[in-house]
């Protein structure tokens, strides 16, 4: 965010004046900044690695990627020499709890009406740290202590003042989000109305979805009749569940044990919703069943098994077992479980256990985009896609590699050379404060 933006600021009056002048005459398209990152090693992810390559952007969009000698860089483009650096797509975290996110409140186990949208603090330092970790798109979710803890929110980690500034709009004008569900021990509690067993957990969920099926039909009929005289009483909770039944919203389902995984697959079979399995600690035990159900997975790699009963049999080979069977597999940080700044390292653990480098890179980018239904706009470096990318000092899977810059939609949101950004990248005094006091009287 430092020198390059300062330069842009300095040039702004020069560029802006002719624009204003010309817009007074005709109002043509505003001139978009063209940036060329040259001589880099580029992993487009959707195609093989290119050495000595150029990434060309116009405004917020990628217009070309390829070997430097095959890319025509316009004369007015800003050239950034990326010799010795590696460029990969912006990382996509399919499951994160940054931004002081909260959801359901423990008053009941199923709360589809709750939106994480209403809780997110876009100034929380965890968001700066995620940018320092190369993350450009996240699925922000509430926790796993409920059978259904609320509506998630898909965000681009743009710099902004409000959560709307970071949000993603779908073609119908609504925001992009999914719904968080969980089974297993986290959502089982000693006291009602929470379930005390796994069977009760599944029964409560099925009962709710059966009610939603009725609501779904009523809503469809109301829309079909299109009668303005008739009122339709909206139920926030059932509306969200009906959206799931309509396959308009994806269920992001926390699940660990092999039997709990199969319970999710049964629910999916019964109600026909779109579901992504999250964590999936025992995926290696039921990888065939997961593949047969054609359900994508979002995995996490931890440095050891255990820490909870359900994670006792967690194995690093989950990734390779799913890859062998062709299951669409993404990764997530589950920040704060794994810090967002270690996301690349997480994929390296997958490689260690046998995943291919290509599938591991996809798991950090394109597969996550597919799981969030955002692969038309993000997840790989291709012409027409949003210019979300990360500059690295070296190989994506080497521990010694540092994240140098993160760009979202053509704008730099993290620069290791910037002292404030570096503080978020490495930690240090002041890195922990969510709102650091500034001004005359607050300095140490």
């Amino acid at each position, binding site marked *: 965010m430092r020198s390059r933006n300062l330069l842009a600021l300095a040039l702004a009056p020069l560029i802006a004046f002719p624009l204003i002048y010309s817009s007074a005459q005709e109002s043509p398209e505003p001139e978009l900044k063209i940036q060329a990152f040259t001589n880099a090693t580029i992993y487009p992810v959707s195609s093989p690695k290119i050495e000595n390559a150029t990434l060309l952007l116009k405004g917020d969009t990628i217009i070309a990627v390829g070997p430097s000698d095959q890319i025509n860089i316009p004369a007015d483009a800003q050239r950034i020499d990326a010799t010795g650096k590696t460029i990969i797509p912006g990382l996509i975290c399919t499951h994160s709890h940054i931004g002081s996110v909260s959801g359901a409140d423990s008053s009941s186990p199923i709360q589809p009406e709750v939106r994480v949208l209403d809780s997110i603090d876009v100034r929380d330092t965890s968001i700066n740290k995620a940018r320092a970790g190369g993350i450009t798109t996240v699925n922000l979710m509430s926790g796993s202590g409920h059978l259904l803890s609320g509506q998630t929110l898909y965000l681009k980690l743009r710099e902004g003042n409000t959560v709307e500034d970071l949000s993603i709009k779908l073609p119908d004008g609504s925001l992009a989000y999914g719904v968080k569900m969980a089974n297993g021990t986290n959502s089982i509690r000693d006291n009602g109305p929470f379930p005390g067993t796994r069977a009760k957990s599944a029964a409560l969920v099925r009962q709710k979805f059966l009610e939603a099926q009725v609501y779904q039909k009523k809503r469809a009929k109301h829309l079909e009749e299109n009668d303005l005289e008739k009122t339709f009483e909206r139920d926030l909770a059932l509306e969200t569940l009906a959206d799931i039944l309509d396959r308009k919203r994806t269920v992001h389902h926390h699940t660990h044990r092999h039997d709990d995984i199969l319970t999710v697959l049964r629910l999916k079979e019964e109600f026909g919703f779109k579901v992504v399995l999250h964590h999936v600690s025992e995926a290696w035990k039921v990888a065939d069943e997961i593949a047969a159900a054609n359900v994508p997975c979002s995995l996490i790699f*931890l*440095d*050891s*098994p*255990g*820490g*909870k*009963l359900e*994670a*006792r049999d967690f194995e690093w080979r989950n990734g390779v077992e799913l890859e062998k069977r062709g299951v669409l597999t993404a990764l997530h940080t589950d920040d*704060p*479980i794994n*810090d967002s700044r*270690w996301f690349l*390292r997480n994929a*390296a*653990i997958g*490689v*260690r256990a046998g995943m291919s480098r290509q599938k591991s890179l996809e798991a950090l980018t394109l597969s996550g985009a597919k799981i969030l239904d955002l692969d038309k706009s993000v997840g790989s470096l291709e012409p027409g896609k949003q210019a979300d990318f990360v500059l690295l000092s070296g190989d994506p*899977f*080497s*521990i*010694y*590699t*540092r994240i140098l810059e993160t760009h979202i939609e053509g704008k730099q949101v993290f620069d290791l050379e910037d002292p404030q950004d570096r503080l978020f990248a*490495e*930690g*240090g*005094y*002041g*890195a*922990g*404060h969510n709102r650091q006091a500034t001004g005359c009287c607050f300095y140490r």
Partner: protein
Amino acid sequence: MIKFLLIALLSLTAAHGQIAVKADLLFTMTGDLKPIKNAIILCGPDGTIQAVGTDIQIPEDYQILTAKVATPGIIDAHSTVGLSGILNSPKHDQEQLEKSAPIQPELRAIDAYNGRDPLVKWLRDLGVTTVHTGHAPGTLISGQLMVVKTNVPSITSMKDTLIPASAIASTIGSKALSKSPGTRSKAIAMLRAEFLKAQARSLKIEAAKNDPEKEAPDANLKLDTLVDILTKKIPLLINAHRHQDIAAALRLREEFGFDLILDGAAEAYLLLDEIKAAKIPVIVHPTMGRPFGDMENMTFTLAAQLHKAGIPFAFQSGYETYVPKTRVVHFEAAMAAAYGLPQEAALAACTINAAKILGLADKIGSLEKGKHADLALFDGDPLETTTHTTHVIINGKLVSSTAK
């Protein structure tokens, strides 16, 4: 004649079990810490290193293991493994923290350690051969730590450990606060009051030793352990993260003159001069520890800063209350190497420098003739995430070949 046959037979069976390691790159962790190329190590029949170098003839009947890289067995300078079990199930496998009283130095690690917990095997398979483990941070004084090899399933006698009582675990900071002590000032006042009691007791014990007329005080496990700290029989390992807590630990040491090991020390970068002047070692928090609570201002560069300042330090896996239930100490060293710590220094801080801090540098931590034959073999740079640990050797015996 029978005696001769017996000796011949013994040496034969021992030789059959003996291991030779051929490594493309061998980090002996001696001298300037630079690795040697194409090296050979012979493990002796007594479990020590028989020979190490480039010009060594491997006897015929040795089992030969080859590796791209070999290092001394990894040492975790502070863990709770074996007490804090994989299931995280209270009253079943969580023995690391007893909260009924704020000061309990009498709790021994040897009475709680379960060497058969799967996490001990997890660490062993990854190359960790020695752990400094025991009571966790969380109360003013939570209990004792011990040093043990990761191939020891049960503590049947003190001889099963390297050190049965290696340090007393103390915590200064938010985690040690509860109803009482409820503030930092009260916490320090309580610690000082106990140490003053122990000081008086120590004088009485000394007086009784020199004067048969005087009676020695009755045994008191708690105070006698505190006396052991004051008489430097055992160090006090103080977990402190915020700079004011680190300063409090230094003040306590100044007042009572015990051997101090600073543990965690997230904000140690603010007090480098003071820590260096006090000549105390630091066991740094896991590099990938979570930046919350007292650790909110932690930095991944801490180890690099301590290295630059010339302060002795080692890495630890620390204590986790949730997932991952244990960290892996050389993974933490690796992340520090990504943030400015030279590779050799990162390896030293989980081998020889950890051994030095634990007072075991004559036995473990480097590959030298006569020291324990504890080795970790890798198929690449031990610090790279994508590298596998291929073999692990403890006391000359192969304990793992899982290629994890």
